């Protein structure tokens, strides 16, 4: 199949405007006859479901959690980018677009990214109108901070819980549509199959996680807003339930999977403490605004951090990247931390951590406060106390979280941090309209591959989720559904629905009947270890080749020896998890295959064979300037389709933050 990205013709700045004024519309009377399924209720799903409900479509929304408000977007901490230029520091739509393209190491589409930057400002307007309580200055206007990979302040935030506030805003909009009868909500439901009729996505099979019953749901279109697949690594910053199942089922029904190997390892997470660990907790990138990252200059230094004098500390990010310092993009910061730890300079009991130190921020803010409050001859303790108060207001919840998890007081001793899996830039391949190559099947937010190339900049995930849901899909869906107004709702006793339900049921039965010896959790951990060791921060051909065989063997073992207690027709979290791990066991292999074919380093994909002399990523634009879109052809059979990336505006260059 020919991949058509459907980027509108014309200059970059007018593509989206032209599209919006020329796309087809569905009249209000027809909208009432059209049903839309939205799977997932995070920022992308909740905003899409609410907006489409308002527009008059009949929407059904699904989430596996007990309430749409719990989707993992809620855990996003630092902020959301928007090209508002409220700080008068030279920001613009073009600059946000350029930073995102460069941050993604030139592996994203210009057209999509420009549109994202263009609608970013509307998102902030929309959220403020909904009552999202963003941080404000004393004059009553919105406050901003900076994030990695940029030199302007364009990040809007609500303390360290921006994702929570944005999601609650979208959730409230969704609940309003539910009360008006425009959206039917199905909580504790998991999508287990896409139903295709005459080549088009026409519905889903979902499992009611309380009763275990399978249900058939028809939709003229199906929107997957189901997030990323970072949990393939077992340990990640994702929620325990985050999974790839919906996207993977779509992939097996013909939707191409784009750039699966592009995963983001976030530099500032609380380090692993032991084998029992079930998840890793992020310390927001916003902390790098004020915290300085360092390790001792001396190997295996046993002294306490505050006993190590300034001149014996190596602020390695400031040293290597003076222009961006501690605010280099995530992929760069993560690799630099790994490099120091691998070289033997790591700190803490595991030696796999670096310090994130706020001492200088306490002092700096303290002096500002002293001047503000007119305190003469303030002593060191007063300055420190006032400085701590300022930092507390900015990041208090993050410091508390760190203290609870580690039992250490980060106001007294520097935080210890280490990189962890956080986000997946890869996802279902979509065109400019966010439609996959399966007609009628869309992917929004982290579930698609479209906007972040090989590395996502901080505070851009929230932006993309809401852009897709509020401002993009309401237009692009109509453009396609306009041709579908004569299609009546298809009854769910149609043979395609019957067959799809039977397939799902057979698979569940097969899994339950294995009655082996090893728990689902144990398989998941083993898969995670293979992925982290061989498809994590550093990758090479030998490791990836081994990983592919190891995953195949593990998958075989899973299907012969997994033990799932309980019954099918009941509330059975072990069974839910088994289905998700089974899909991860397939996805992991594809990620390694993708990483193996991409013989270059770019963004989060670092192939050890391809680096510069000083250890920076070495891209190969000649050979790999394309999106790798994989087609499922059967067990372990994937065919690569390439969508070339044509840069018309931006000149690609070696990405430098020095």
């Amino acid at each position: 199949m020919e991949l058509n990205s459907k980027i509108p013709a014309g200059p970059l700045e007018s593509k989206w405007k032209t599209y919006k004024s020329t796309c087809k519309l569905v009249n209000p009377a027809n909208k009432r006859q059209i049903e839309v399924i939205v799977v997932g209720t995070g920022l992308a799903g909740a905003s899409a479901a609410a907006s489409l409900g308002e527009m008059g479509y009949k929407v059904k929304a699904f989430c596996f959690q007990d309430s749409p408000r719990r989707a993992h977007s809620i855990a996003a901490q630092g902020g959301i980018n928007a090209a508002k230029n409220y700080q008068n520091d030279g920001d613009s739509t073009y600059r946000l677009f350029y930073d995102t393209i460069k941050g993604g190491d030139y592996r994203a589409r210009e057209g999509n990214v420009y549109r994202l930057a263009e609608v970013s400002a509307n998102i902030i307007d929309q959220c403020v109108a909904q009552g999202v309580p963003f941080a404000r200055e004393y004059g009553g206007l919105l406050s901003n901070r900076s994030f990695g990979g940029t030199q302007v302040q364009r990040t809007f935030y609500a303390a360290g819980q921006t994702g929570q506030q944005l999601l609650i805003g979208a959730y409230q909009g969704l609940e309003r549509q539910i009360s008006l009868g425009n959206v039917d909500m199905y909580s504790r439901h998991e999508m287990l199959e896409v139903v295709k009729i005459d080549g088009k996505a026409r519905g889903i099979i979902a499992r009611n996680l309380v009763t275990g019953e399978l249900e058939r749901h028809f939709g003229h279109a199906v929107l997957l807003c189901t997030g990323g697949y970072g949990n393939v690594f077992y340990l990640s910053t994702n929620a325990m339930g985050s999974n790839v199942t919906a996207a993977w089922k779509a992939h097996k029904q013909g939707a191409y999977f784009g750039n699966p190997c592009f995963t983001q390892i976030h530099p500032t997470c609380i380090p692993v403490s032991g084998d029992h660990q079930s998840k890793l907790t992020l310390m927001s990138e916003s902390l790098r605004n004020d915290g300085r990252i360092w390790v001792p200059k001396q190997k295996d230094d046993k002294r306490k951090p505050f006993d190590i004098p300034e001149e014996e500390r190596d602020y390695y990010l400031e040293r290597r990247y003076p222009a961006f310092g501690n605010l280099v993009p995530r992929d760069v910061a993560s690799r630099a931390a790994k490099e120091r730890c691998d070289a033997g300079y790591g700190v803490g009991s595991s030696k796999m951590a670096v310090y994130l130190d706020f001492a200088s921020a306490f002092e700096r803010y303290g002096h500002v406060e002293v001047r503000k409050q007119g305190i003469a001859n303030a002593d060191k303790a007063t300055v420190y106390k006032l400085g701590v108060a300022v930092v507390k207001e900015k990041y208090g919840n993050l410091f508390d979280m760190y203290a609870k998890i580690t039992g250490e007081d980060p106001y007294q001793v520097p935080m210890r941090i280490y990189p962890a899996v956080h986000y997946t830039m890869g996802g279902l391949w979509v065109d400019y309209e966010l439609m996959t190559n399966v007609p009628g099947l869309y992917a929004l937010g982290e579930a698609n591959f479209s906007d972040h190339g090989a590395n996502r900049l901080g505070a851009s995930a929230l932006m993309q989720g809401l852009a897709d849901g509020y401002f993009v899909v309401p237009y692009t869906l109509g453009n396609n559904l306009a041709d579908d107004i004569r299609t009546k709702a298809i009854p769910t006793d149609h043979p395609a629905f019957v067959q799809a339900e039977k397939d799902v049921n057979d698979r569940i039965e097969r899994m339950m009947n294995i009655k082996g010896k090893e728990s689902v959790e144990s398989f998941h951990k083993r898969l995670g270890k293979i992925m982290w060791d061989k498809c994590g921060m550093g990758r090479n051909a030998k490791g990836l080749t081994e990983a592919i065989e190891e995953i195949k063997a593990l998958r075989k073992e899973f299907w012969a020896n997994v033990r799932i207690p309980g019954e099918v027709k009941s509330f059975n979290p072990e069974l839910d998890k088994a289905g998700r791990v089974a899909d991860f066991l397939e996805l992991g292999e594809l990620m390694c295959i993708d990483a193996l074919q991409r013989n270059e380093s770019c963004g989060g994909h670092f192939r050890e064979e391809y680096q510069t002399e000083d250890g920076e990523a070495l891209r190969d634009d000649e050979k790999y300037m394309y999106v790798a879109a994989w087609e499922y052809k059967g067990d372990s059979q994937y065919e690569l389709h390439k969508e070339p990336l044509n840069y018309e505006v931006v000149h690609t260059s070696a990405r430098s933050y020095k």
Partner: protein
Amino acid sequence: MEHYKMNLTLKVWRQKSKDFKGHFETFKVSDISSEMSFLEMFDVLNEKLVAEGKEPVAFDHDCREGICGMCSMYINGRAHGPWHETTTCQLHMREYKDGDTIVVEPWRANSFPVIRDLVVDRSAFDRIIAAGGYISVNTGNAQDANALPIDKQKADESFAAATCIGCGACVAACPNTSAMLFVSAKVSHLALLPQGDPERKTRATNMIHQMDTEGFGSCTNIGACEAECPKGISLENIARLNREYIGAVFSGSKD
């Protein structure tokens, strides 16, 4: 900080579904590290149960970083356990010592029926939000965000109320199973902002009406909700809700 291992006795509520009678079941777990979170200790228990061919204990959890509001255990008589302003997922085992016995129950409230073991149905909260916990603004019509300056103090107070995670600990902790803290947090979040002003009367009355319909109890100012709230939502919000509600009723807004 010194880390240590411990052996524990757990008394955990088991209940097949809301139509079955429940009971406590006693388990022993050993070699629990003081570095584990409380839920990781439950992971250890469940792995053990699976290995023994028994059914694991069902419990709700998702983000495990204290923000999604999904986890919900009643631990030794306290919602989310002994730590102040902390969800169960953020409670860590260094709180306990070798030989301790820990009793774990689900949220107990008629409006939160048990689904299984420690899992309860909190959809009543969603229905309360649907009754009015929003600002009626459609996508795409908003004015510029900075066209409406908002007093920083008001914005900060609104944010503090908006940090509610909807976990239901307030209801579980209340002897009357009242949902006033939850409802008041949402009413305050929106009433403190100028954008929330046009609908403030109908919002307060509709949400209170839905709260009563769901069968939550009355508020008698005990304050257990505030004490157990993992996000430190203040009782002042309940006072504000009462003012909003009385104001709405006396000005003739529908009830």
